[in-house]
């Protein structure tokens, strides 16, 4: 299977590069840990002053912060092709006899792996300090994270492939990444949002990932689990189709 060879080559490269960029790996842990331990305990403490409830809030946002960290890692990863297109490995890959869909899938699996490495570490930290996680819950969480990061990596790649300047990057941060995080119910139940925000939350695939993770880790849920998974599968499928088309049209940057 020559195409599998190509997917494997692209994936392997992404993983090697990620593991060697130690600053990137280390840097990506700082903000989720700040959210969990500073924001989580501070807000939790003030909301539940005098009770032991701050731990409960930390547990509540734990699936949300886990989502946030993999969301950011995978989106950044995808957007990186804006730079990659100008130099580096991408040119070498684009001129190789490998189909654009394989390149896309190799890239996506690279992003999923990068994000999972981070996800697993945060999950382990959480299991020690925040909430008990059984082996079955651990595996369930990973599976949900694979679906989520498949979608978010694809989304990042789609945007990156269609974005022609690095200046667009900040726009994507502010108009895509942060809204996806805030409307997902990561920090508070979606039901607490004003009614007019509800459609946005419901249209946000990340909402279902947060809900699925809360179901698996805490046993709390807003939607049926099959709906969460169904939405994530559909979102990933749609994103891969658009991604493959975008990569098909990808040309070397001038």
């Amino acid at each position, binding site marked *: 299977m020559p195409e599998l060879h190509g997917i*494997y080559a*692209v994936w392997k*490269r992404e993983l090697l*590069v990620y593991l060697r960029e130690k600053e990137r790996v280390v840097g990506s842990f700082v903000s989720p840990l700040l959210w969990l331990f500073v924001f989580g305990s501070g807000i939790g403490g003030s909301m539940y002053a005098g009770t032991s409830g701050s731990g409960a809030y930390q547990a509540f946002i734990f699936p949300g912060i886990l989502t946030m960290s993999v969301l950011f890692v995978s989106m950044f990863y995808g957007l990186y092709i804006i730079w990659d297109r100008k130099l580096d490995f991408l*040119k070498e*890959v684009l001129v190789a*006899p490998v189909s654009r869909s394989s390149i896309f899938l190799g890239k996506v699996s690279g992003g999923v792996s990068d994000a999972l490495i981070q996800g697993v570490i945060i999950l382990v930290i959480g299991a020690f300090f925040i909430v008990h996680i059984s082996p079955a819950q651990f595996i369930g969480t990973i599976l949900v994270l694979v679906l989520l990061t498949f979608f978010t990596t694809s989304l990042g790649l789609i945007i990156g492939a269609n974005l022609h300047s690095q200046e667009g990057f900040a726009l994507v941060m502010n108009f895509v990444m942060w809204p996806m995080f805030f409307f997902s119910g990561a920090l508070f139940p979606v039901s607490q949002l004003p009614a007019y925000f509800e459609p946005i939350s419901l249209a946000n695939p990340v909402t279902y990932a947060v809900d699925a993770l809360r179901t698996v880790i805490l046993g709390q849920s807003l939607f049926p689990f099959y709906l969460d998974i169904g939405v994530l599968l559909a979102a990933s499928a749609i994103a891969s189709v658009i991604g493959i088309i975008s990569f098909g049209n990808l*040309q*070397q940057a001038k």
Partner: protein
Amino acid sequence: MAIISCKGLTKRYDTKVLAVDRLNLDIEEGEVFGLLGPNGAGKTTTISMLCTLIHATSGAASVAGFDIGRQPSLVRKSIGIVFQEPSVDDLLTGRENLDLHGMLYHMAGPERKRRIDEMLELVGLTDRADDLVREYSGGMRRRLEIARGLMHSPKVLFLDEPTLGLDPQSRTHIWDYIRTLSKEHGTTMVLTTHYMEEADLLCNRVGIISQGKIIALGTPRELKSKIGEDIVRLKGAVDAQKLKRLKFVKKVAQADGVTTVALVDAPANLQALLKEVGKVDSVEVREVTLNDVFLHYTGKEIHQEEGEGGWFERVARSGGNRA
């Protein structure tokens, strides 16, 4: 049949910039073809189109018998490319870069390993194969890129400024290998270069490209003979008019007390020339180089801007340096 054939190949960026303008060009199998031209002439754009990295705006081209527009993956299988800008991965070792390349070109494990060793040996990187590319010098990166482009034994190899930034020793090394590849494996090569000497030494045929069009095409010898065969530089008081009357003199230019004469067959005619000139301070004879040809064809704009003299006068003023 030509291994590369361009018919009216055109690339327009946005609506204004015409990077390549109805290019017609045939390159025969086994040829080492050089594309010469100033920056922005359209050399890299042409190569990018032939490598299927960018779409042509109009026109057609085939590489190794495959249409670049309709059969891009078959084209990609037949070609190798050495990019002008670095495209090897900093955070991988030299060996890893080559290994990934082999995988992308569907080479089986043992074959990959064998070719990697061969290629590393060829470009003299065996000792540094397992160091990160980040720690390589510019010349070493370049050599790695060349090794990579050759690794899957392509039918056509595109080299965009292959020896840019290399020290003279590595350059000679690469030249030798290009010649060997051409002679022993019949690999067709298309290279762009700024080094006239490189084109002269390596290329069977050269196309001079300016503003997206090929303005001169031929063997280095043919191109040079259009200018004259040799150039004589004379320092001292010389009567140019008198020289112009000589049969074997093609052109005379004077600047800063130096007279530059283009003539046919200097070894035979030098004495006659000097007899006509009389006493001068110094005499220098050299052959016409592709550099002179290049200036002749592309120097027009520069000379208009400067408002004086043509290529020949510029050669005269620059002291005949082979830039």
